[in-house]
């Protein structure tokens, strides 16, 4: 299953806001787990999304050390990111609701 266009940003923001700071690898693993491995996230999609979000100022990256003493870049959601998440979530709900309604009426 492929992700719908534009939903990856929303998913990443949501994951960071509920789980706290995460590195990219952790985020990927976590998302695959939540989705029960119904989709795999390739790094080619995830990294550009992280760069994009960081450039928008919605998330912020810091180099830290993991519990296994590996270095990794931990991403945190920012205040603007939280506000954006609220907006995006509301938008998604409206959109999803609309699509649902259409599908129901048509069937």
């Amino acid at each position, binding site marked *: 299953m492929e992700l719908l266009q534009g939903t990856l940003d929303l998913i990443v923001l949501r994951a960071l806001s509920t789980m706290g700071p995460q590195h*990219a*690898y952790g985020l990927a693993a976590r998302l695959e787990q939540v989705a029960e491995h119904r989709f795999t996230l390739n790094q080619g999609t995830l*990294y550009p999304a992280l760069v994009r979000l960081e*450039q928008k100022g919605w998330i912020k990256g810091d180099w830290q050390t993991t519990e296994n003493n590996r*270095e990794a*870049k931990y991403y945190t959601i920012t205040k603007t990111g939280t506000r954006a998440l609220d907006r995006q979530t509301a938008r998604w709900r409206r959109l999803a609701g609309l699509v649902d309604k259409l599908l129901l009426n048509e069937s």
Partner: protein
Amino acid sequence: MRRLFNLVQPGRAERELAREMASHLALLEDDYQRRGMTADEARFAARRAIGGIEQAKEQQRDARSFRWLEDAWRDAQHAWRMLRRSPGFTAVAVVTLALGIGANAAIFSIVNAVLLRPLPYADADRLVRIIENVPAASGSTVPTRRVIGLPLSDLTAFRSRVKTLSHVGVYVGSTVMLTGRAETIRLEATRVSPALLSMLGTPPLVGRTFEPEEEAPGRDAVVVLSYASWQRHFGGARDLLGQSVTLDGRTYSIVGVMPRGFEFPDPQTQLWIPYALTPAALRSRGLPIARLADGVSLQTAAAEVNVILRRSAPSPLELESVQEQLVAPVRAALIVLTVAVGVVLLIACVNVANLVLARTAARRREIAVRLALGAGRGRIVRQLFAENALLALVGGVAGIALAFGGVRLLKILGASLPRRDLMLGVSIPRLDEIGIDATVLAFTFGMSVLTGIVFGLAPALGHWRSLSITALRESAGSPVSGFNLFRRHRLQGLLIVSEIAMAMMLFVAGGLLMHSFVTLSSVDPGFDRSSVLTFQVFSPRARTPRFEDDVVARLQSLPGVRAAGYAEMLPLVRFRSGVGLRPAAGLPPSQLPPAPGTRLPPQSPDTRIVSRDFLSAMGMRVIGGRGFGENDRAGQPTVLLINRTLARSGYLGQNPIGTMVYAAGSTPWQVIGIVDDVRQYGLDQEPDPQIFIDVRQLPSGNPNVYYAIRAGGDPMARVATIRGILRQIDPSATIDNVATMEQLVSNSISRPRLYAVLLGIFAGVAVTLAAVGIYGVLAYAVTQRTREIGIRMALGAERSNVMGLVMGQSASLVALGIALGLAGAAAVTRYLDTMLFGLTPRDPATLITVSLTLAAVATLASYVPARRATKVDPLVALRQD
């Protein structure tokens, strides 16, 4: 902000990215090890899982910065490689553009220097001259426009009455002899009313200009030098202020030097002296120049000047800016040249557009491959555009190099020998100021950019739709119904037709001017221009009658000199001196009007006073009766010669030789001979009725006569010998205004020659470009159709059929282009009317020659690819693809 940062510091972002990838790999390895793999297994598995690290990096790179700017740089690099890969195409395109841009830059450099840049005076656009429009009725046979001569006695009153002019100055040209040195030097001077130099507002380079009180007689012994004469005759020394010089026997004190480029009123002026209001000067006239008062328009001032000067100048007056008056003689021609050179650039653009179009078509596969690999359509167009922009810039740089050469050529072609005494001005005003400066460079750069846009649009327009992956499936030359080279290349056909039409128009214009120039230069001037040297001698003894005869006698005794004489004026000079003429016997004949094309009627012929041997020295031909002889001296019966036009007019009867006429004085003159017509005023002026009188029977009014000697070899080589002879007669004598008749004839047609050569060059370039264009498009079309031609030949088509097919295609385009070009030329060549001599803008001979030549060139250009088409081997052609 971050993006910008990333752009200027890509290294940092790259390191960050590599670090993050490494971290990802490490975390993945850990995970695999936790799941029970060995360290090595985990490392390999992780590497596999993460896939193309480089791919991921690439995607991240796209997101992180101004991709378009990086792309633009990459586009430029790619464009450079593409252009270098096809050197033939690049060379043709760059040369084409360089010709177009270079010619434009060169012509613009003239327009800039002559028309656009203000004269080097303060507020030069407020300086005006007073012009008099003399109607044909009052004293002149044709209407004349000339700068008025203001009586100096009126100057003070005029100044105080006129309110619309803040300053009024007058000047008059004169020559002075600089003596008190090893050699007497003759200098061209301009007498100016003292306030005139300060009115012009150009600060002096050294010292000062004149003070207003130097107008008073007695205080006027001061002189200001031009830069050139300061350098040439005064060694460029700065401490020369206050130094005395002797001019015409009077002592003057040098008070200043004007800067280089200050050429008032003409480039010949070597020094300025004040115009003192002495009683003698008050009876003379000066040429006025004035400055408009603040806020006053040209018309308002002209109205007031007309009222004030009504008594001294009865003809209607107008004011004209000094710059306008200076450039008026060349303005129309400069506009014609600018338009012509613009057309050359358009043709160059069309040509390059065609080349680019053909090349883009040939690259359809390359483009399709790039599209298939994921390049955006806009990205491809931008890439093509980058190539064109680069091409235009390279062409512009080459064009500048060409323009430097062009400006040098212009300066050589435009060079002339201005001679005040012969009323010969420069052929192009301000020629020295012409050059490639910042304005010209900016103009050229702008033009290259514009050019790139114009021809760069063509492939984008022509191939937008074909920019698709489907081109991959197409093989070159898939047959379409019927053989029409341009059915699928309609844009190219259109471009070819317009290119030929424009080249045709330029060719017609250039052809007309060249034809006109050939006609003009092959006019028989009525004298033999070769081997004649002319000069003037300046000496205090020049007015004594024996002096001239002494000089002539010594000149004649020089070895190799076949004839020597003198006259008060040379031919080809716009100078007239008329005299009333009527037959002595019988009733006065009816007054005749001037013959068509001439100015003077037979009853007031132009009069030339010459020495006995002047006619033979000039090579003028006596075609009836006899010339002047030894016995036609003072005290003997007075005799004169008439020219052929006067003889033919019938004014003096059917056989004028022997007729007695009244001319100058109260005693009658006998007509003893007829001289063949001489172009007295210029090669383009029909000869007027004319008489010749021997100087011994009517002394010349000109104290500084013109000598002419006819001698073998290089006439100029004799100048030193002549100078030596003069020294023997009078040590203070100087020789000046030296020129061969060949130089004077050549000089008199320098402007038409310049225009003919320039337009001829432009026409040649245009026709060459059109030929290259036809060749290029046909050659490309034939290559594209190789397979089809092969099929036709396999099915039995003869070589002549194939040849006819290809040639026929181009012939119809060429014919259409020539027809359109002729129509266009008919619409615009009337602007050339005033530049033509001896033919009309619709001269049939020129139009036919030009059309046939262009058709021949076009046929030749299409013959080469057509011949290649017939060489197609059907077997090879069918095996292609």
